[in-house]
C-alpha cells in the first residue's frame, strides 16, 4: 500500500474571470522510503497539489479528488480537528524561503519546542533535550546555545536546517519539500540536499521533492513526475527520465539545459509548445 495515494486530483481557483484549473486530473502515489520528485516550471501546479494535501490552500480554491489516502486514512472526508493531528506530525512540509517561513518574533528554540508540545505533549525538560538533539541531527553546531537565537541572527542555510529540524521533530512518515534550496547558494544547496536524503534514509520517510531544477532531480529522486500547466506529462524512474524520456515536453526540457547545449543556440520549450498545439 502506498503511503500517500491521490487519484484524479483537480484544484480550481475562483477568479474574477471565472474558474481557473491549476491542477487537472493528477494521479500520484509515493511509498514509504521513496523519494518522488515533482518537476515543472512556474504554473505547472506542482506546489498547489501539495498544498491541497496539506489543506493550506486559500478559501477560493476548490479541491476535488476521487481518492486521497494517507497511511490508510482518508484525507478528503476528515474533520479539520483530525487533520490537524496529522499535519505537522505525520506529514511535514518545508518551504522555499527559510527566513520567511520562520516567525521572526520567537527564538528558534521556541518554534521547535512548539511542535513537540502540540503534537507529542512533551514536558519542558524533554522538549529542550529533544530540540538540542534535533538541531545536532541537522548539523547545527553549538546547538544548546543556538536555541535562544532569533531567525535573523542565522544565515539562510541555517534557517533551512532549522525548518528541517522542525519538520522532522515528530518523526513524520512523509516529508514534502517545496523548492527547499532555490533561495540558497550552490554549496549550501548541496549540504541541504545531502541532509534531506540522509534523513530520509535514516528515518525511512517518504520524501516528495518539488523543484524546477533538473539537477536537483538528478541528485535526489528515485521516481519523477513531470508536469506542465496542471497536467502530468510523464512519470518515470529517474534513470529512464534522463536516458529515454517518454514525453516530448520532457525532451524539450532536458534539451533546454545549458549543459546539454550542442549548437551555439539553445532549443526552447516555446518551439515544443507550438509544435504540440
Amino acid at each position, binding site marked *: 500500500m502506498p503511503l500517500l495515494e491521490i487519484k484524479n486530483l483537480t484544484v480550481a481557483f475562483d477568479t474574477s474571470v471565472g474558474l481557473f484549473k491549476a491542477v487537472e486530473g493528477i494521479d500520484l502515489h509515493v511509498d514509504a522510503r521513496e523519494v518522488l520528485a515533482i518537476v515543472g*516550471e512556474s504554473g505547472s501546479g506542482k506546489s498547489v497539489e501539495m498544498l491541497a494535501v496539506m489543506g493550506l490552500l486559500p478559501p477560493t480554491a476548490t479541491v476535488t479528488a476521487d481518492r486521497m489516502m494517507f497511511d490508510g486514512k482518508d484525507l478528503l472526508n476528515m474533520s479539520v480537528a483530525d487533520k490537524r493531528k496529522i499535519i505537522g506530525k505525520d506529514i511535514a512540509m518545508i518551504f522555499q524561503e527559510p527566513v520567511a517561513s520562520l516567525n521572526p518574533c520567537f527564538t528558534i528554540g521556541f518554534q521547535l519546542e512548539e511542535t513537540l508540545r502540540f503534537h507529542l505533549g512533551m514536558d519542558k525538560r524533554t522538549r529542550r533535550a529533544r530540540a538540542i538533539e534535533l538541531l545536532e541531527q541537522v548539523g547545527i553546531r553549538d546547538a544548546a546555545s543556538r536555541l535562544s537565537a532569533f531567525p535573523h541572527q542565522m544565515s539562510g542555510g541555517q534557517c533551512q536546517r532549522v525548518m528541517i529540524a522542525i519538520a522532522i521533530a515528530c518523526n513524520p512518515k512523509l516529508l514534502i519539500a517545496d523548492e527547499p534550496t532555490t533561495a540558497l547558494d550552490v554549496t549550501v*544547496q548541496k549540504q541541504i540536499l545531502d541532509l534531506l536524503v540522509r534523513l530520509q534514509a535514516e528515518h525511512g520517510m517518504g520524501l516528495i521533492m518539488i523543484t524546477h531544477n*533538473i*539537477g536537483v532531480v*538528478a541528485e535526489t529522486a528515485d521516481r519523477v513526475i513531470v508536469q506542465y500547466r496542471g497536467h502530468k506529462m510523464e512519470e518515470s524512474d529517474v*534513470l529512464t527520465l*534522463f536516458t529515454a524520456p517518454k514525453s516530448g515536453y520532457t525532451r524539450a*526540457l532536458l534539451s533546454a539545459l545549458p549543459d546539454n547545449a550542442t549548437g551555439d*543556440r539553445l532549443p526552447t520549450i516555446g518551439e515544443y509548445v507550438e509544435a504540440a498545439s
Partner: protein
Amino acid sequence: MTTPVLETRHIVRDYHVGGSLFGGQRTIRAVKDATLSVHKGKTLAIVGESGSGKSTLARILTLIDEPTSGELFIEGEKIDIARQGVSKQLRRKVQMVFQNPYGSLNPRQKIGDVLAEPLAINTDMPASERADRAMAMLKKVGLGTEHFNRYPHMFSGGQRQRIAIARALMLNPSLLVLDEPVSALDLSVQAQILNLLADLQDEFQLTYVFISHDLSVVRYIADDVMVMYLGDVVEQGTREEVFANPRHEYTQALFAATPRADVEHIKARLARRAATA
C-alpha cells in the same frame, strides 16, 4: 592588440559599517584587488556566491559606485567618477540589466516610455524619433509593437527581462553588465533569454560582463571566467582553462557542489543508495 572595452587594475572597495555613538566603525573590504579586461564582442562571467563581492564589483563597473582604490578604464579612457562624475557620454557606453525583472521596471510607466526614457535623459532627440527607436528596439528583443502602450504588470517574467535588456540597449552601449539576468526565470525562458543575448551580441558586437552563480549557464555563455570568494578573485582564465582545470580549492568545491544531470552520475548515486539501504 586592440584596446579592451573594459579594463580594471587592482580595484578595491571598502564599506564602512557601524560607527554609531557607542560602537566603533568597522571596515569591510568587499572587493580586494580585482584586475580584469574584456575585449569587444566577448563575454566575461563573474561567478561567486552571496557575499563574494560580485555585485559590488558590478556597481563599480557600471559607474554607480566609485572604487576605494584602483583604476578603471572604459575603451582605454581612464574613469574617475569620484572626481569627474559621470558624463552623459560616458553613461551611454555602459548599461546594466538587473536580476529581478519584477523590481527593476517602474510599474506606473508604459513600456514605450520605459524604453524612450534613456534617450530623453541622455540625448536631444525629438519625441517622435525616440518613439520610433523604442518601437524598433521592441521588435529587436522579440516583442511586438502592440506592447508599446502596456504596463509592466501585463508581462511575464521573461518578457520583462526582454524589456530590461531593450532599455539597456537603447543608448547603443558598448558594454552591458548583466547581474544574474536569468536566475529568476524558468528553464525554458532562460534558454530564450540566453539565445537573445547571443543574437544581440552577434549583431551589435556587444561586450558582456555576466554575473552569475549558475555554472552551467556560465559554461554556456562565457569566453572568460572569473571566480570570486569573500572579495578575493580566486580564479581567472578562459572558460576552457577554468572548467577543465580549476586550480583553487573554492572553485573545485563549487564544481563539486553543482548538481549534475548526466546519466553516469545518476547511476553512481543510485548504486550508492542501493548499497546503504
